């Protein structure tokens, strides 16, 4: 019994070590890239700001007793001035807003990758009715305009942050699942998967052990990009006053600025500050995503169609990555892989 446990322990340890080594390798590659260096340092900086917000911020924006004179312009004590209607310190609000943006963005990004991977792999490997069902669901999700749907769902379900994250995940997995599926269709025909099937491995084992690792580069990349996308979406939602009403977020700061008459009274600092926050966060995550794309697939030069992923959370650009990999694969194995076309609903 003891021996068995030890063996298990060693195995888990070894696996953990391998995982960590993989992560370190990734970060090293990212760091070696000049653009990746910028992205990585900004993200690290933002994470530190979010973690140590109470230490960095000179005031607590949630505390109604810590209010200064209203509508101060930037000065030594208030580096970004104060708000016109409540007299909160804008710099402190900016610092605390990092938390909301990062938590919502990263949690949703990771969850989207997870859901997208599970459904994409299931759809591609099992095929048949399950595949059909999942892909039709993707088609439906991609035609409903996302912002109005998010608004309706928050109206029905509530506006807590965890609900908003759930909604983002529910709406965001479609494009990724479709891309993963097409990749799985290629991997499915590779020799090692055939060998595993012949050896009598169960479906689940094949999906988790043999197919999932083959899609990991897409997952890592899309996590960075969808995190960026979600952060903009969250800012937009909060800007409309439909985010969590109790939290201070950058989008809500902009909304308050508009309502509080920042435009009218010329309080430019009140508008610029949250804008810079959103910009830095989204920009750095996108940089990381683009650099990962270049590192993982040197055939893809620069940021092809990154824009599209953003607009409709549609990962058509990843499809292009996949196209080029598919090409490579066909050349290597000589196998006839399904030709992914530019059509969105090609397999009707």
């Amino acid at each position: 019994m003891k021996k068995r446990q030890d063996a298990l322990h060693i195995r888990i340890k070894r696996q953990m070590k391998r995982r960590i080594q993989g992560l370190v390798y990734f970060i090293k590659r990212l760091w070696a890239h000049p653009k990746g260096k910028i992205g990585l340092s900004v993200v690290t900086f933002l994470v530190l700001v979010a973690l140590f917000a109470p230490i960095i911020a000179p005031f607590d924006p949630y505390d109604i007793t810590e209010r200064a004179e209203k509508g101060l312009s930037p000065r030594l004590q208030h580096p970004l001035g104060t708000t016109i209607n409540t007299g909160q310190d804008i710099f402190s609000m900016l610092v605390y807003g990092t938390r909301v943006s990062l938590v919502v963005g990263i949690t949703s990004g990771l969850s989207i990758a997870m859901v997208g991977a599970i459904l994409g792999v299931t759809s591609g490997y099992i095929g048949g009715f399950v595949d059909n069902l999942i892909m039709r669901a993707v088609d439906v999700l991609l035609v409903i305009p996302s912002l109005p749907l998010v608004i309706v769902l928050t109206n029905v379900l509530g506006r807590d942050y965890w609900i908003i994250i759930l909604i983002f995940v529910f709406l965001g997995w479609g494009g990724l699942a479709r891309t993963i599926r097409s990749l799985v269709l290629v991997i499915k025909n590779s020799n090692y998967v055939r060998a595993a099937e012949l050896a009598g491995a169960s479906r689940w084992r094949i999906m988790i052990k043999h197919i999932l690792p083959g899609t990991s580069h897409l997952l890592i990349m899309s996590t960075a990009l969808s995190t960026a996308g979600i952060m903009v979406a969250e800012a937009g939602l909060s800007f409309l006053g439909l985010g969590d009403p109790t939290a201070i977020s950058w989008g809500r700061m902009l909304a308050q600025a508009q309502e509080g008459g920042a435009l009218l009274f010329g309080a430019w600092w009140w508008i610029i500050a949250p804008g810079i926050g959103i910009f830095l966060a989204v920009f750095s995550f996108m940089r990381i995503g683009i650099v990962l794309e270049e590192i993982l697939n040197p055939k893809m030069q620069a940021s092809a169609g990154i824009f599209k992923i953003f607009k409709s959370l549609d990962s058509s650009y990843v499809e292009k990555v996949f196209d080029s990999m598919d090409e490579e694969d066909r050349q290597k194995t000589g196998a006839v892989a399904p030709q992914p076309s530019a059509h969105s609903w090609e397999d009707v």
Partner: protein
Amino acid sequence: MKKGYVIKRILYSVFILFVVTTLNFFIPRIGVDDPAERYYPPQGNMSDAEYEVIKQLTREEYGFDVSTPEQYLNYLGDVAQGDFGTSFRSGNPAVTGLIADRLPWTLTLSATTLVLGLIGGILFGVFAATKRGRWQDTTLLNMSTIMTALPAFFIALILSFYLGFEFEIFPAYTNPNLVGDFSFSLDGLQMLARNAALPIISMSFGSIIGYAQTTRNAVIAVTNEDYIVTARAKGLPQRSIRYKHTLRNSLLPIVTSLGFSIGGLLGGQVVIEQIFNWHGMGTLFLEANEMNDYPLMMAIMLLLSAFTILAILVTDLVYVLLDPRVTVGEKR
């Protein structure tokens, strides 16, 4: 062969529309046993008996007094006839009329943005592709990451701050009399253009850069094709190669990206309309959201989804017509 594909494509679009309609029916019913509770949530100062009466009235008014499957069938029938029910606003106006009132205003903004984005994007994209790797090209790449990181509503706020309030070039908010005073005269159109300028400019930035990026990539992909090399080897003038051979073939990816971008454009416009208080569907949707006006909200959602489905359908069919190489009947 193409005919069969077209019919299949249209039928599939109808199917997707049907699924979206079904979702639309069930979304207000999530989390409540009785949709009347959603339509008329309990107020603080109401006794149970009073609330029961109100619920009963609501049920009768909105046809909730029959079983759910029956309600669903009724809903489908109404939608098929273009009847989306009545709004919660005072006087209970028909939803269809409310939307029809706002639709032209919304389409004015989106259509102009789309046209500006396409013209500007294609010109800029071709330009960047011809200067591939030089500073003009890298500028486009950098701008596209910057523009995606800057949400349109932030650009709109900045524009309304500087162009609207500081320098007073354009009105920072839509003139409330615009809708009432509008007429198809020179003055009316001028007034419309002045008021629509800022919303359109703030949305166009992202649109132009997005299409420019797509165009640039498509043009570069086509440039490496054999027929371009042949054309060059034949000694055709640069101009003719660029516009006749390259651009024409690279239009295809742009057409495909168009379908999805139209949906994104209409959805994203909600925020812009709110900032400038534009008399469009976006503001109507937000007003409906504030009043928990579900019939109105769901009708707008359905309409926007239908637009997207139609746009994707049309672009897909145009794609097939444009590209003689796509032989749809024989795939796989």
